[in-house]
């Protein structure tokens, strides 16, 4: 039996990361999933949140995902995310800018605009991203 799993994170645009990990914590739709080697095969939806990739009992990478799904088969853990950002090397300025832009864009669309949900979603994502970044920088310092 292996004591690591192969973790893969893909977005529609590219394969973001492929690495081995001793544990992966995923924000599942119905609560966080801690995935260890030999986890039962599972397919689950992911809510907006942060994926922690653990290696040798410390968190090696923190990755923000906007949502998606995860599939686990025989020590392969594949996350399909709509959008993923590495929190370790995320740029704080660009994130706050994104938040501001999202706020502004939402203000500019009228309430009846059919594309409004998209702007609301963008604002929600930008806020979640900022929170995630703040909490991760707090815990590391």
């Amino acid at each position: 039996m292996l004591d690591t799993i192969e973790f893969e994170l893909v977005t529609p645009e590219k394969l973001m990361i492929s690495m081995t990990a001793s544990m992966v914590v995923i924000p599942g739709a119905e609560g966080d999933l801690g995935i260890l080697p030999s986890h039962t095969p599972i397919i689950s939806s992911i809510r907006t949140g942060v994926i922690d990739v653990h290696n040798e009992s410390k968190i090696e990478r923190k990755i923000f995902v906007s949502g998606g799904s995860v599939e686990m088969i025989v020590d392969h853990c594949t996350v399909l995310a709509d959008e993923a950002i590495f929190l370790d090397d995320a740029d704080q300025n660009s994130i706050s800018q994104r938040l501001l832009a999202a706020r502004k864009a939402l203000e500019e669309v009228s309430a009846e605009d059919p594309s409004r949900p998209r702007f609301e979603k963008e604002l929600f994502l930008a806020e979640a991203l900022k929170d995630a970044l703040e909490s991760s920088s707090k815990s590391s310092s």
Partner: protein
Amino acid sequence: MPNLKDLRIRIESVKSTQKITSAMKMVAAAKLRRAQEQAESARPYSDRMDRMMVSLASGIGENLGGPKLLVGNGKSNIHLIVVISSDRGLCGGFNTYIVREVRRQIDLLDESGKKIKILCVGRKARDVLRRSYAAYIIESFEDLGRQHLSYSDASEIANHVLKLFENDEFDICTIVYNRFQSAISQVVTAQQLIPLRGYKNSTEASVEAHNVNGAVHEFEPSEKEILSDLLPRNIAVQIFRALLESAASEHGARMTAMDNATRNAGEMIDDLTLTYNRTRQAVITSELIEIISGAEAL
């Protein structure tokens, strides 16, 4: 006999055309490389999405009735054709082939008395189709991915298509695009998006694959909910893939077309230069004859 000045002007103009076409070829080659890279890096996602869909669809489908996106709404009266073409021309037969395929499909559907709706992506197909099928075109998207084709472009189209489907505006959706095979060959492909055909056929294969893995999945939340989350996303992914393939094909087609144009211009310059030299010699000879005969007359 053409006069020398005219020939010189023509040679110059063909030369500058050649410069333009060869520059366009270079640009297309660079863009092709980028588009190809993008298409390749998008492949892992759609591969894994396919795999996940297969393992989901094998469990669901016949027994549970299945979501509409997977098994259809039981009708096939109204067809939606999503046509993916380019915004700009000068890319050989790229758009012509797409339009030809769309026409063929429309004729087939017309014969069997189906209703047709068209959604155009890209200016070129819209311009051509509007001439004969203006009534069918319900929407067109343009200027996608001018700089960089992103997933959000694809999901915008997907959302639009899904909304139409929810409102029962069509029963079957097909996407027509140029699939990239190599820089010199693109294959026009028609792929059915809604309902998702093919997964049923591949069910048996996937069950086998399952047994090999020994994996029966747990689902969280329920299988049905995941499927209803994944199916719309799958549509967006398929559209994204088609857009990427089409972008790569477009640049490939343009590169080939411009390469041919450059070569033809080269041939034309050679021909014209030959004529020019011949004419020049003839002029010199006739001038000499005039001088000599003039001198002899004295």
